[in-house]
């Protein structure tokens, strides 16, 4: 992934560590979209996601000297982004219930039989459930890692994922009689 996003990652990191602003900008340009995408999938609004994008790269620029090159550069940046996005969720203290999501988006119980597209169904999940789905299913984090980032238990992460998939299945009209 590193070489796909940033061809000369090693030299860019070395220059960034030396404090070269052009190198820091290269890092930003390389990872801007995946970081924003991750943030936007977790956060409720574009403004929050953009703030997470900025927070993430501020932290990357500040901590690049501590990046040990043991794992991938993208893995390191992604973990910072995920932590910042989850921190943003906690700070905003969203009322994390499905009922609220239904109030906000105007869905009603009767609508659940309607087929939604995946984007809409994902958006409709609670913040926590959506974060778990995205971090686990798309970004590939384990339940232990998600639990660590969220300050919860792996069981919490597993049950959130299971409940989220049950809902997605229903909202996507995938329920079939067996």
């Amino acid at each position, binding site marked *: 992934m590193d070489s796909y996003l940033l061809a000369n990652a090693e030299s860019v990191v070395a220059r960034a560590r030396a404090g070269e*602003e052009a190198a820091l900008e290269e890092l930003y340009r390389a990872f801007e979209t995946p970081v924003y995408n991750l943030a936007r999938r977790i956060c409720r609004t574009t403004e929050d996601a*953009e703030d997470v994008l900025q927070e993430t790269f501020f932290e990357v*620029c500040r901590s690049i000297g501590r990046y040990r090159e043991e794992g991938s550069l993208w893995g390191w940046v992604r973990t910072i982004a995920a932590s910042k996005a989850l921190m943003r969720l906690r700070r905003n203290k969203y009322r994390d219930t499905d009922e609220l999501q239904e109030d906000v988006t105007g869905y009603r119980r009767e609508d659940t039989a309607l087929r939604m597209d*995946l984007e809409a169904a994902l958006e409709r999940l609670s913040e926590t459930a959506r974060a778990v789905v995205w971090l686990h299913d798309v970004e590939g984090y384990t339940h232990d890692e998600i639990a*660590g980032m969220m*300050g919860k238990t792996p069981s919490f992460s597993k049950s959130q994922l299971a409940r989220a*998939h049950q809902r997605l299945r229903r909202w996507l009209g*995938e329920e079939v009689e*067996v």
Partner: protein
Amino acid sequence: MTHLSMEALLSLREVGTEPGDATARAHLESCPGCQAELDRLHQRVARLKALPALRPTRDRWPQTAARVRAERRRRRFRTSGLIGLAAAASIALGVVVGRNGGVSVGEQEIHQAMERSQALESALSEFHPEDRILDGRTAGIAQALEDRIARVDRELEMAELLEHQTRDQQVLKLWRERVGLLDALVDVHVTRASNVGL
């Protein structure tokens, strides 16, 4: 016939096995309904992964770069400023001592607050907070305290531009606030360290 729960289906997708997986696998082999459900789960995850990447509508690099530059200035100030302020305080002390045979209360207090701040920073650095993994709640508290310390540092920078008399009062107030925040930050890390037996 009891079908596999969503949790059991998800568990079958995980690397490694969990208690109950063998039973679940045995059921799966003989149940077309659960096989279809697992297929739908695989497809749903594949569709999630295939969602188009969302892109920011605004370029946030200029703000990020400005913040990085400000942070660098602040760090330089913290290093050279501490030395500079300490030196300035020593000179001031020397002048006052030479002239009055005593030290003005304000300057002495600033000097004490600076020393206390430095001692707390040293104590904090011994915990290597940047290398530690904090739980979400503790990380949030530590982040909030660090943000407030950064704000105090920016205000200290600004206070240096004030007139002498106002400056001393303002600088003392800010150094004391900084000491209080650092004290709290050390507490957060020490409490966390003792909780996990580090």
